[in-house]
């Protein structure tokens, strides 16, 4: 069904295009902070399947920032010297990212942020999801289920990166609304499932029968906590566990009733930022992704907005099958 829709969309786009096929192909570069985790892989795969890329209007090149701000800066230099028309940027570090944005700005190339925001006023636009909100939503989901009382543990992302800082802020905001809930421990597991598993095993030893809720700042770590609980012979149903991102394994765990996840829509971020970047590079460009119809609360507005907030989708038993079906394509 979806395929059919996309096929039709492509066909329509192609016919519309034949007249302007001779027009200059836009060259858009993307540098993502790193391609090791599933979320960024989904993002990169999605941007390459954007309608504008498929019909040849835009040529997109994705660079792997390898979790290193300097690598990303060099990729900016490359894109500037090769005269890219626009750059899409998910920096590993918000402040180091500002330097790169400045470089592109000086060369007259618009930069659209996505997923993680560079700390720069020169960013032409930003298409991403509000991490403070996701931190709030996941903590709220846990706190509501444990009845706003009891003990929780928080598994942080890598300390100091913007997603961790903002998700922590959101976690704390929700926790402040439940003053009777005690935070037993808060520690990083660096987004890693294996690390979170060991950490949770140790906490279960340290706080036998005391932990009611687990707030994992991403799905990987929440899944690690679930494995730890299982490995100790405890029942996952005695814990309320939440994560963020909506990776495939987490969707499966939601389906099994083991956790809650908040889906971050990689596809919408990718296709949305591509449309905005193309519009900035060529004022005659028309947005082509179906995501603008999918999220009426996020209108395209001629690509003029400073901020496009891609909504979070709480994953529930009701929508998980649909989301999984979409993923397996």
């Amino acid at each position, binding site marked *: 069904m979806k395929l059919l829709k996309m096929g039709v969309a492509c066909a329509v786009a192609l016919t519309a295009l034949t007249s302007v096929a001779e027009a200059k192909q836009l060259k858009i570069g993307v540098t993502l902070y790193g*391609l*090791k985790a*599933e979320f960024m892989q989904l993002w990169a795969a999605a941007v390459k399947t954007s309608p504008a890329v498929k019909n040849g209007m835009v040529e997109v090149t994705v660079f792997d920032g390898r979790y290193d701000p300097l690598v990303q800066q060099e990729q900016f230099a490359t894109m500037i010297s090769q005269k890219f028309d626009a750059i899409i940027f998910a920096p590993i570090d918000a402040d180091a990212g500002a330097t790169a944005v400045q470089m592109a700005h000086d060369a007259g190339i618009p930069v659209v942020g996505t997923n993680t925001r560079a700390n720069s006023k020169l960013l032409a636009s930003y298409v991403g999801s509000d991490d403070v909100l996701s931190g709030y939503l996941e903590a709220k989901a846990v706190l509501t289920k444990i009845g706003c009382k009891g003990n929780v543990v928080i598994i942080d992302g890598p300390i100091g990166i913007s997603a961790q800082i903002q998700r922590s802020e959101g976690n704390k905001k929700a926790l402040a609304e439940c003053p009777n809930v005690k935070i037993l421990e808060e520690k990083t597991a660096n987004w890693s499932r*294996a690390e979170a598993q060991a950490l949770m095993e*140790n906490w279960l*030893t*340290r706080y036998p029968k005391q932990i009611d809720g687990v707030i994992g700042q991403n799905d990987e770590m929440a*899944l690690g906590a679930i494995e730890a609980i299982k490995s100790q012979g405890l029942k996952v149903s005695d814990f309320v566990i939440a994560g963020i991102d909506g990776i495939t394994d987490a969707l499966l765990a939601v389906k099994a009733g083991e956790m809650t996840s908040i889906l971050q829509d990689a596809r919408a971020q990718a296709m949305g930022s591509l449309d905005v970047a193309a519009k900035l590079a060529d004022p005659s460009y028309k947005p082509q992704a179906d995501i603008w119809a999918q999220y009426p609360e996020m209108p395209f507005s001629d690509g003029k907005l400073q901020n496009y907030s891609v909504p979070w989708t709480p994953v529930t038993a009701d929508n998980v099958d649909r989301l999984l079906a979409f993923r*397996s394509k």
Partner: protein
Amino acid sequence: MVNVDQSEDSAPTGIVRQNTAIWRVILKKYGIITAFIVLCAVLSVMSPYFLTTQNILNVLRQSSINGILAIGVSFVILTGGIDLSVGSVVALAGIIGASFATTSPVAGIAGAPYPAVLAILVGLVVGLCVGTVSGTVVARFKVPSFVVTLGMLSSVRGLTMLYTDGKPVPSLTPSFRWMGTSTVLGIPVPIFILLFVFAISWWVLTKTRYGRYIYAVGGNPRAASTSGINVRSIRRSVYMISGVTAGLAGLLLSARTGSGLTQAGISYELDAIAAVVIGGTSLSGGVGSVTGTLVGTLIIAVMNNGLDLLGVDSNYQQFIKGLMIVFAVLIDTSRQKEAE
């Protein structure tokens, strides 16, 4: 130490030297075990949860993957080489093995799930292949192992990403996950696997001719060569061993986490090498034991576990581990100077 001082007071000088020498030998030989016992003693006083059966089993299970990796890397380091590729092999073997044992119709290879035994075999063969490539380049073309395995670290990680387009391989069959999640006689299976790998390695290194050759090649390759040892084939073989153990560790990690993950095993080589070095194996080869490696692994695991139990900031864990590595190498260097 106190005992040494006493003997100095009461004995003639010649014997004193001998006595101190004996004490130094004991300290160097058993220093790491002493350090381990002291660490455990301190932690059991500081945390009431440390010496519980459940926690001890946790620590052993948590050390199983690094332990298996470190034992394999010990073989390489004993010959004077290094293997930096093991963390990436963990990911590649883990994910390819997983793709044979998944019930997911999209993530697996055609016809999956296959029996767990086949998935495990495939994972081990993947490790063996990577090890064979590294070993051959090191042994045959005399390229420094640091460079070869550094290259493999990157290439093998790239292969892992290519294999699944960066996606994880979820929904592994219960029979495959058995080795990571089950217990036998109340003891988690990963611990048995670690002990099994340890026992075989200990036997090979201490009781077989091949084991003695490994030490000989590491201690003095020229002498080993003139005494008729095929240095090249010994060198190649240790990377194959390290590849297989890394493959096993990767399969175990997939079984434990329930998914083949592309980002699995990142920087695991560093923990493995740390365990080997802390365990007293010399980076210049020829000296060391897998027993030391096992204790080194346990020290790292106990420290991580203890600091979690005490609620200490995780940044301290990295800091302390670093100090321990430097300290262990310091002891090794002083030992080498003495030998000269």
